[in-house]
């Protein structure tokens, strides 16, 4: 039996007092603070025990008033809070806070679907609304709108969008589909952004910027408030879509393929995030490493070839789709066929999808949630985990190739399997380098940690930075954004200190620390 870790500045008595007040105000069932509760909020993929990020428990509001009450009590006691929507941010720390002793504000049970506008394709939802929950709502009410879902569908629309997560339909840049937020500020006041700043404005969910300064992005990947409602845009179900999986046999194929895809993305012929991954993408979802190889070090190239043969995949595989009214979809498909005609040995194997046909087999490409990709954690055997190092590159085949060679070498020198994907966005590539490990193998987790640190440094040297990161590395990654002595972080800190003088909201999120906890952390 171990006691809850205390947040800095609180002793046991003042902590117990704060918890007592929370219980009295919220009710016992909304304060989850047993030892077992704390264990359920540890990062399931932690590099180590995860106890360095152990919360002091969780608070589970079901209303805006609950959130305001929590923020009020937290201010009075300087109790730090870590807001999560469904807290399924696996690979980035899940629901665990940066700072041990922080209380998780878990919005899982604040999950009302307040409105779905079928005519203009938007919804108003609370943060706890999950992808599966929304999927059932749309199905049950026969609403022909699609969500954009990440490859882990266990989480929430709002949490994913606030973390700048991505999906794979044309609406896949999820944070760009937020249209007005309701936020409890660090002083407990309620703010609505965008047109929602006008009480009763009828176009709140239709226009993003509002009048004057536009704040929505201020609440993404930050610690300036707790979002309690969001409007999000949904995609009208297309009349027709086509989907295909394309295999490229050789490593070097990434050079020309990235260039072709980038052009199609820029011109708008392809308007979704294209996942372009190496063979481990499929192998790790269906099999484990031990099925193929039990030697030490990274998988040798001849074993890699065997895996590719078995799954009938090449070194690279990518998923490509087109969506639209029938003539639009047909025309786009034709343009893609033309762009790849002289490059591929066989025609692109398109599969059509029309309204009413089952979308499940196409999963994320058709806005249907699934969680099967979580199986990658089984790859190494034991209690698996993974973290992804994801720098953003310009969408160039040459730059992708250079990044590929350098990262692969780093993985192999560390004795870890190279698993990577290059997700092609509108004008960028998100190069997700997945490090898979067995949590119970201390040597392997140390290597995973060291490799991650190495890659942060390598990328900085090359002039690239990550778009999102794990709680272990938020300080390190934020420091790579170093223009003019870290001027952006000084701006973040000035905002933080003004809005949140007690430093209660998510200390350390993306490297932003409140004044009272900053000393000695930021150089």
């Amino acid at each position: 039996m171990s006691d809850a870790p205390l947040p800095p500045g609180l002793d046991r008595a003042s902590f117990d007092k704060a918890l007592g007040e929370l219980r009295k105000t919220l009710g016992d069932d909304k304060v989850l603070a047993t030892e077992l509760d704390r264990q359920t909020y540890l990062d399931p993929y932690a590099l180590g025990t995860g106890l360095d990020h152990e919360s002091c428990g969780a608070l589970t509001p079901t209303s805006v008033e609950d959130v305001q009450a929590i923020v009020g009590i937290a201010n009075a006691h300087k109790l730090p809070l870590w807001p999560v929507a469904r807290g399924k941010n696996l690979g980035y720390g899940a629901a665990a806070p940066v700072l041990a002793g922080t209380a998780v504000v878990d919005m899982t049970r604040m999950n009302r679907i307040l409105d779905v506008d079928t005519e203009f394709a938007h919804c108003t939802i609370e943060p706890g609304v999950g992808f599966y929950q929304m999927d059932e709502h749309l199905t049950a009410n026969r609403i022909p709108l699609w969500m954009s879902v990440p490859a882990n569908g266990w989480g929430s629309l709002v949490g994913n969008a606030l973390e700048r997560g991505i999906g794979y339909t044309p609406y896949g840049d999820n944070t760009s589909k937020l249209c007005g937020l309701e936020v409890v500020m660090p002083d407990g006041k309620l703010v609505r952004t965008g047109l929602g700043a006008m009480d009763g404005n009828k176009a709140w969910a239709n226009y993003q910027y509002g009048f004057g300064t536009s704040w929505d992005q201020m609440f993404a990947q930050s610690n300036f408030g707790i979002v309690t409602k969001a409007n999000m845009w949904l995609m009208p179900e297309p009349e027709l879509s086509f989907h295909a999986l394309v295999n490229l046999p050789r490593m070097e194929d990434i050079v020309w393929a990235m260039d072709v895809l980038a052009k199609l993305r820029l011109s708008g012929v392809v308007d979704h995030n294209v996942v372009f991954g190496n063979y481990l993408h499929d192998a790790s979802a269906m099999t484990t490493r031990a099925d193929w190889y039990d030697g030490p070090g990274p998988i040798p190239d001849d074993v890699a070839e065997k895996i590719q043969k078995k799954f009938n995949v090449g070194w690279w595989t990518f998923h490509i789709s087109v969506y639209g009214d029938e003539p639009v979809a047909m025309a786009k498909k034709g343009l893609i066929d033309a762009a790849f005609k002289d490059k591929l040995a066989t025609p692109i194997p398109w599969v059509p999808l029309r309204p009413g046909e089952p979308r499940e087999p196409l999963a994320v490409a058709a806005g249907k949630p699934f969680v099967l990709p979580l199986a990658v954690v089984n790859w190494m055997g034991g209690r698996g985990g993974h973290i992804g190092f994801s720098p953003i590159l310009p969408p160039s085949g040459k730059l992708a190739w250079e990044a590929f060679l350098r990262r692969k070498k780093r993985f192999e020198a560390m004795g870890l399997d190279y698993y990577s994907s290059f997700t092609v966005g509108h004008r960028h590539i998100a190069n997700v380098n997945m490090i898979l490990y067995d949590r119970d193998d201390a040597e392997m987790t140390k290597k995973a940690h060291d490799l991650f640190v190495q890659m942060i440094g390598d990328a900085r040297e090359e002039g690239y930075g990550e778009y999102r990161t794990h709680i272990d590395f938020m300080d390190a990654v934020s420091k790579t954004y170093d223009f003019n002595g870290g001027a952006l972080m000084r701006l973040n800190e000035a905002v933080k200190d003004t809005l949140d003088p007690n430093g209660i909201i998510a200390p350390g999120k993306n490297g932003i620390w409140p004044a009272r906890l900053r000393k000695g952390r930021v150089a």
Partner: protein
Amino acid sequence: MIKAGPIALALGLLAAGSAALAQNAADPTARARADFPVSAAISRSPDEAVFRARCGYCHLEMGFGTLTLMKAQGPVKALLANRTDLEGDYVRAVVRSGLLGMPAITRAEVTDGELDAIVRYLTRNNPRK
């Protein structure tokens, strides 16, 4: 217009009643049924509805949990819903502590009352001692 399957049709009604269901705090299965009307409609009992709502992500056909168990223990033991050998305490321990690739599940996600319902469902066919 999309074609509505029989399930979707039956559901128009259910979804409308969901707000009322959620209010009924005395019934620990109400919230799961309100959150997941499609799963509730194809469930044969409120307990099954809770299992589908909270564990269905991974433990139905082709789920991550099902496929992992299939590989480790064979087809007979792959689907939790068909098992007759799971002890209640074991299910509770796995849910709150996690098991290999299965992350621990919080009491915000699955309340104690819901876990009771899930345990009743998963042990319903166990041989009587």
